[in-house]
């Protein structure tokens, strides 16, 4: 029993460690006083300012555009690549997987700088360069999610479908797709998470006037106190909380893959 309460206490301590900063942000987002931590009355004005701030809103929109576009494109490219790789001989497969591992293993700052050095030679930095960079670091996650499913998929059913006169596309859609679909989706989700969270790579590949939430925050944080950002934190936290709650518990149990996903 002692052991149990000890472990409860330990859990509670870590819980406090993890959530205290977030609680403080939420609390301060309703605080009427700007520069002091002391309570200065209840207000919604930071929320209103937050929605009216062009800096925050345009960063928000850019983030969504980059994230979704990068996730969709990398899912398509990555799934195609995974299908291709699974049909390869050992040698070329090793080469492909080796290259796939580079952005995974490399430090973000190195990946960011290497791409910047390349882009600067050929094109202006801007929305497109950020998008390319995001697609590049997303693809490996998609491949690593789809590839195991491809291995599990029974290739003979696909060939049987072909023998029975199905077109390759129809056979793929009817036979292979259902088997790899979960991998494709978890790759997609993972790509979204990685894109949303990225700072270093975006920081080095972005152009003037293009800001994702991360790079916008970095600039704003160096300019001093800005309670609109507390409001933003609260909104984002609430959104993430609800979304994850719905995805994990409202929709299906045992979806542990997805949480593991963020990791990768």
């Amino acid at each position, binding site marked *: 029993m002692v052991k149990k309460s000890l472990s409860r206490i330990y859990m509670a301590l870590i819980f406090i460690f993890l*959530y205290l900063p977030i609680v403080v*942000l939420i609390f301060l987002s309703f605080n009427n006083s700007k520069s002091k931590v002391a309570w200065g009355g209840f207000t919604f004005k930071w929320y209103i300012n937050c929605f009216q701030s062009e800096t925050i809103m345009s960063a928000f929109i850019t983030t969504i555009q980059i994230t979704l576009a990068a996730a969709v494109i990398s899912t398509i*490219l990555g799934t195609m*690549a995974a299908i291709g790789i699974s049909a390869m001989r050992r040698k070329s497969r090793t080469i492909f997987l080796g290259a796939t591992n580079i952005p995974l293993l490399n430090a973000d*700052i190195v990946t960011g700088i*290497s791409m910047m050095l390349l882009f600067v030679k050929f094109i202006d930095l801007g929305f497109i360069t950020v998008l390319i960079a995001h697609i590049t670091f997303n693809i490996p996650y998609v491949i690593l999610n789809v590839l195991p499913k491809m291995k599990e998929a029974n290739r003979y059913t696909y060939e049987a479908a072909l023998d029975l006169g199905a077109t390759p596309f129809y056979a793929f859609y009817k036979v292979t797709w259902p088997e790899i679909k979960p991998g494709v989706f978890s790759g997609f989700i993972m790509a979204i998470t990685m894109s949303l*969270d990225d700072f270093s790579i975006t920081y080095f590949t972005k152009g003037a006037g293009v800001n994702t939430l*991360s790079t916008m925050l970095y600039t704003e944080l160096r300019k001093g106190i800005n309670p609109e950002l507390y409001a933003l*934190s609260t909104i984002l936290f609430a959104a993430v909380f609800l979304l994850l709650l719905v995805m994990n518990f409202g929709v299906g149990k045992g979806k542990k893959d997805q949480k593991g996903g963020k990791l990768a």
Partner: protein
Amino acid sequence: MNNLKKQLLAGPYLIWIIGFIVLPMIMIMIYAFTNADGAFSLEYLSAITTTTNLNAIALSLKLGFLATLICLVLSYPLAMILSSFNFKHQNFVVFIFMLPMWMNFLLRIMAWKLLLSKNGVFNSVLHTLGLGSFNILYSPTAVILGMVYDYLPFMLLPIYNSMVRIRKDIIEAAQDLGANNITVFFKIIVPLTLSGVVSGIVMVFVPALTSFAVSDILGGGKVLLVGNVIEQDFMQGMQWNAGSALSFVLMIFVFISMALVNQFDKDGEGTAKW
């Protein structure tokens, strides 16, 4: 024939690899091995040994090591506790501990700034209670704290994953054979979670070693890590060759440590398959 067609599907990705993975790596190498005039030179690679760079590397290693160690010490017991829950609650509890990770890390760092500031939340509370004050904001300690806060889930999750995979009957069998709790822990739980620990270490150590935003914000410009030197070389000093040389060294270092980890972690739960 059909196989070949399938392989062609990887074509666009091949082009992508060459264009956006291989070429950028070559660019870094070109800059690292040339001087400002574009001629071949080892000038910048050998500049790694300047006091500034050595200091920065030493500090990065130190902070990275401490952050990783603290994450490990905090996560391991927590993972054990979490894995002991019955399945119904388990998902929810793990979810609670992973949730903060989904919020943008810069916002979480900002929160710590508010907590630690001289007239911040902690000090206000201490002041009200009549207990002095403490100042760790803008110091290496604050940077370690920020890193631990940011990367704790990266350590927790792999350890937890390897922990839940341990089959209860193995432990029961050991106990039936007379093993006490300590023996069970050291002979069964530790060896079976080692691969999770190794992945956790890699996933915390590499970002901690190379980050520049956390040290910039919580270090108050006083803490210069390798990442900060590189960032300044590129964004302020106009010293792209020096920055590339440092990045190149960092890249080699990371790859070598990954190779070592892979060597050690044959059963595949480590880096390659997170």
